[in-house]
């Protein structure tokens, strides 16, 4: 079974580092992007199963990116990972498949990813 490919998009370097290490440990193939542009570029060049998007980023925010990705690859699983909880109630955020609040405990994120990729 081939490893699922996950793209982590976040402007915080340490977040990217943390997530790529953790998710790699979980058995996923992880790539990172530091902003929306890089993310969109990588998504066009490579194929990912799941994209983890930070919302607050310089340039386009995660919700916008999610919208674009949804148009490009309707089957792509998208998880919004953010420090803010209020975006959950933003309708546009519903373009994403899941909405996870950042936390030192990454178990929720991992469970969400696992569930999404099972489908």
């Amino acid at each position, binding site marked *: 079974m081939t490893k699922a490919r996950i793209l982590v998009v976040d402007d915080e370097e*340490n977040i990217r580092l*943390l997530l790529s290490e*953790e998710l790699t440990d979980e058995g996923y193939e992880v790539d990172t992007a530091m902003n929306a542009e890089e993310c969109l570029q990588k998504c066009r060049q490579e194929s990912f199963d799941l994209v983890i998007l930070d919302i607050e980023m310089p340039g386009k925010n995660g919700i916008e990116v999610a919208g674009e990705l949804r148009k490009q690859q309707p089957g792509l699983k998208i998880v919004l990972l953010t420090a803010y909880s209020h975006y959950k109630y933003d309708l546009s955020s519903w373009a994403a498949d899941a909405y996870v609040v950042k936390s030192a*405990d*990454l178990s929720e994120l991992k469970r969400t990813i696992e569930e999404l990729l099972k489908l």
Partner: protein
Amino acid sequence: MRFFDLIMEFLESGYESQAMNKLAHMLCEEVQAQSCDVFLFEAYKSQFRLVGSTHGEERVGQEKISRSDLERLEGCFFLEHDETMIGAVVLKEVKKTEALQELLKELSKTLWVAEKIVSMRETMEKYELLSELTDVFHNCGDPDSLLKGTLAVMKKALNAEVVLYLLKAEEGYIFKDAEGMDRNQLIYDRLPSNHGFVTKVEKSERGVVLTKIQLDFLGIKVRSLVACPARLGQNVLGIVIAVNKIAPTGYRSRYSFDELDLATLNDMVKRYSLAHTRVEYQQSLKEQIERLTLSAKEYERLIQQQQEYLRKMSLVHSLSNAMRASYDLVNVYKILLLGLTSGRGFAFNRALLLIRDRKTDTLVGKMWLGPEDGENIEEIWKEAEKRAMIYGDFAQYLREEAMMLDAKGGLTARIDGRMFHYKDHPILERVVLRRKIIHVTPALLESFELSVQDLVNLLDVDEFLVLPLVGRWDTIGVVVLDNKFTKKPIGEVDIEVLRIVVDSAGLAIENVMNYEELRKKTESLEKQKNVIDYLHRFTENILQNLSTGIAVVDRNGRIIQCNRMFSNIVGLPQERIAGEHYFELGAAFQDLLEVAMTVQERRETVELSEYRIEGPQGEIFLNVKYSPLWDPMNETITGVIVTVEDVTQKVRMEQEQKEREKLMLLGEVAARVAHELRNPITVIGGFINRARKNLSNTQTIEKYLDVISKEVENLERIVTEILEFSKPKSILEFTRFDMNELIEEVVYIMQEKAKKANVIIETKLSSAAEVVADRVKLKRVLINLVQNAIEASPPSGRILIRSFREADRVVVSVFNTGEPLSDKELRKIFTPFYTTKTQGTGLGLAICKKIVEDEHGGRIWAEPKGNGMEFSFEIPVKGGKEDDQGQDTRGG
């Protein structure tokens, strides 16, 4: 009695009668004597005069002989009777001596009787004359004829040639009158009081008898005279002088005036004196009576005239009263014309009224009263008379008749509205402009010829009166009167009374005209007043119901007017405010209205917004506008209109809004804080978990600890900034410093970073940039702005820092080339935690805003400019707003 007739004849006819010669012959025959001479005794000369003789007739009348001489003659017998010597007879050669004694006795007796008879006759004559004098006294009513009559009688009584009367006057004697002489025979007609003759007469008791004297004032030879003063009591009235006794036809024993004559004169003069006094008295009485009679007649005439005048004046009065009682112009015209034409009034046949129109210099026909033609005139007048007589009061008649009278038709139709030009009209111009009454007569008309044809054609008469109606100041019209039908001439007296009538009518008409004008004006004023009242109520209504409070303050600070809202705001009833000085409104409003006084001085509108007042109902906020109230006439300020808008509600809402915004902001900030904190916490927590999994791998753990310590540092920085931002205002340290110096300092500090980013910093600084502010805080602002500018600049970018003074503010701007921000971004850049950078909390500009605006009372803003962005801030030169400082101290 043989001798009696002869003796009487002699006494009556004198010597010419030869009667005594005959008597002598008779005596001779009786006693047969040779001759006979008859002598009569002239007592006053004690001599005997030969009056008859039988011989030597030539001696008769001439020969005078004394008694002693006579006694010596032979044949002389004295004739005596009753012991009175009468005469003597000289008989020569008497033959019949026996008859002699008897004869002589008879002769004596006869002579005595005859003389007595003559004397008695004379006395009788005198008495007759006296009675004649009495007749004169009776018949002569005036002193002059009395004197004349008296002198005539005196002349006759005294047998005088001349009788004259000298009247005693103050300065002497004046010749008054004379009988028997001409006035020109008088040498002087005035004698001084001290004239010898008159003095002598005046002093004598009874008068004087003088013979053979000459009077210097008389051109008459005086043989004898008697003179007697006329006395009344002690007063001498005058002197009567009788001159020269006329010889009688018969024999008299004396030929000049004697005492007897004087007595006669005296008696007559006395009577005259009395009579004169009486006549004079009567005369004066008569004169008095005559004068009284004349006066009585004159008075009677005057009274009649007066009565007539009074009657006319009463007419005038009634007419005036009637006119005055009416306030209707046409009625006044009617009353005037009725009064002039009524039989009870001035009884003119026709009266025409013209009213002056000043604009066109014409007289305009208004009304003409009187019969149209000669038909049934008598009846018409009789009817009118009857109606007039019903009324006791003429004025009442005029009023009521005027009410009933229809003056539109008839004669009026001929002249209604017709215009007569009075300028250059020989009659009308004089009447209108010179206010003359002109009585036009046929003669006058002839002299005017064609120039008055208009009036003559209209009136068709050759005598009429034209009268001016004079008002208070000027002629207001003209009345023309005539007697076309009765042809009765117009009297002069009427004209005088008519003058009063037209004067009074003029005033009455003018009064009514003024009254009408006044009434119209009053009406229009009333209408205007209604409109004004309406507008007033309307505006008052609006004013009172405005949600804005309005008050008008006069120059002295007294509140003239205010509306309901103002009173609501002030918290006092309107009536307690209006008229009061603003001091009375309480301390809070006193300050508010104090401004109004400055507005009066500065003469310009002032506005205060959200002015806070601790009013009676608590804190309120007011927008206040002060507008000078100009007097439109002389452009002075009479007061100030103060408009007060209670914006407490709005301010409260704004405050609440701010509060809400603050809360929202707080929520946002909290979220942002959470975000900012969550990232490091996620990272820290995440790596701690990972470290736990890889405890054996020290190398990995070391790497993780590095990350963790970096994130902790990050956390600390974030917490510091958040604290700084959320700290209430810090205590400021204001110092005076040069903003340019600060800019240079910051540029120096940032130069390193700029070089690294390959950005050039330039400055363009103005000279006057000294401020009083917190230098440290402003340095932070500048650093922040320059830092942002460097970060936002592309490589080879350029930064321009400028400073300049604008009014009481210093402006500093930092420009950088680089991507301009979108509108959306511009709106957000000063919000805390907003950032476009990968680095930083996003609190930098928010802190700048706090320092500049909240702490220094300045303003900070950003705008795209040319090919880049410019961030600017300005602060007051003198250390921010006062109230802000006040808040600072409270905050600190």
